[in-house]
């Protein structure tokens, strides 16, 4: 696996590892008519034949903040962070998002990539439970997973989605469903990791605009600043998923953020709140 070390152009940031570059591979691929792509470049791991080749643009649909899967009602921990003053402006929002991205975000992105790579979604669902110690966050993940399932089955009908919906009628963990949706859309594990990782920061950023009346341009700039981190997390997640294909789900990373877990439980007891989590 080719990994290029580059120095990030962010002041004060350490050199970051860049993920494998599917964009270049894909850009080099000549456009083909029709839905079947034959000249697809070699993929990092197997299980590709079982699913349809899709359009890369499906990633835009999946990662769109307007994808109707319930995310708008969740703050990703931003609501309690705003209340305690830990998030109070664009700078603290950025550090919050960076921390969330490299912890809960990476965990979710790796689960999503693994589901897209064809790992057993029920094994991944169990791995997600073990990686989500806060019951409020397990409940939110399953609720969002069920909502994601509804949207995904409408957008990309697939027997694999049907099977998971039947096996987990109350909802599987959202990253697992997202990864399986990406797979149904013909997207690659890295694509699923990108969608999941981006969601880990776009949720809190959008919520903070509502909670703090933060300037939406500042919030968008925060997301733009996190692009290098997003590349890194998505790349790490996809590599881990490739390892998990060979070694099992335990090879997936499990980074965690103590304050997100603690404050999620506090938030769940609030009688009055704007966001579901």
């Amino acid at each position, binding site marked *: 696996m080719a990994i290029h070390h580059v120095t990030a152009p962010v002041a004060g940031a350490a050199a970051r590892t860049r993920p494998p570059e599917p964009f270049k591979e894909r850009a080099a691929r000549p456009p083909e008519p029709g839905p079947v792509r034959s000249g697809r470049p070699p993929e990092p791991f197997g299980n590709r034949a079982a699913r349809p080749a899709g359009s890369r643009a499906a990633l835009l649909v999946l990662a769109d903040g307007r994808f109707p899967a319930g995310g708008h009602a969740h703050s990703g921990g931003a609501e309690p962070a705003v209340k305690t003053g830990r998030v109070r402006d664009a700078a603290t929002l950025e550090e919050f998002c960076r921390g969330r991205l490299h912890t809960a975000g990476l965990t979710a992105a790796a689960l999503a990539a693994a589901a897209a790579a064809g790992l057993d979604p029920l094994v991944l669902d169990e791995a997600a439970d073990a990686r989500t110690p806060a019951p409020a966050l397990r409940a939110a993940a399953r609720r969002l997973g069920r909502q994601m399932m509804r949207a995904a089955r409408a957008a990309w*009908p697939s027997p694999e989605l049907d099977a998971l919906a039947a096996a987990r009628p109350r909802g599987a963990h959202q990253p697992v469903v997202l990864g399986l949706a990406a797979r149904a859309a013909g997207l690659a594990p890295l694509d699923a990791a990108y969608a999941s990782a981006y969601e880990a920061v776009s949720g809190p950023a959008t919520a903070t605009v509502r909670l703090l009346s933060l300037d939406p341009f500042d919030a968008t700039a925060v997301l733009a600043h996190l692009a290098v981190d997003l590349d890194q997390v998505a790349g790490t997640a996809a590599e881990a998923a490739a390892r998990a294909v060979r070694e099992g789900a335990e090879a997936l990373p499990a980074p965690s953020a103590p304050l997100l877990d603690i404050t999620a439980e506090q938030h769940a007891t609030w009688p009055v*709140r704007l966001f579901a989590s």
Partner: protein
Amino acid sequence: MHLDHGNDFPERHTHSAEAIRPDGTRRALRIGLGGPVGTGKTATVAALCRALRDELSIAVVTNDIYTREDAEFLLREAVLPPERISAVETGACPHTAIRDDISANLEAVEDLEDQVGPLDLVLVESGGDNLTATFSRGLVDFQIFVIDVSGGDDIPRKGGPGVTTADLLVVNKTDLAPYVGVDLEGMARDAKAQRGDLPVAFTSIKAEGGVRPVSDWVRERLAAWTAENAAA
């Protein structure tokens, strides 16, 4: 490719929108109630429950800006047993939850039907929002838009999707008209101009029997819908 499921699209994701559920039973009629803040949506829901609960099996889904406020009002008023009231959290955007991303509401409706058994009617109440907030047709069969006279008699003339397209426009708090200098006949004319043949109910929900025009309309809708889907 698995994309050619033309025969069951789009019912696949909104399968709950079909009148007949997978187990062969008929699902409940779903009616949405929207409208600006403070016009009496929750009071209308409460009054409808009181008027209809002896003849129909009813449940309510609320969509609040703040968690549970409306659900708790309904609980306090004891218009329905608690297991028949469900609150959807909307992330400060009720109009998103009833129109753009209805997934949480669909789940709440389905869960109510699963948990309390066959229902005749589910009322989906939106949190107070602006004049453009309407319900998705994927979520409700009919929608009621509630405005009141104290918001000004020019609201029907201004129109907007809620006023123009709702299946029933309720103009509430008519008892206040003399105090706020509102011309009810003018409002009726403007509404007629905006809505054509769609009905308008002038009410004072809090008065004795005030909900009658609304509950009668709901009964008619339910009867027609039931007849239509029994034939199908």
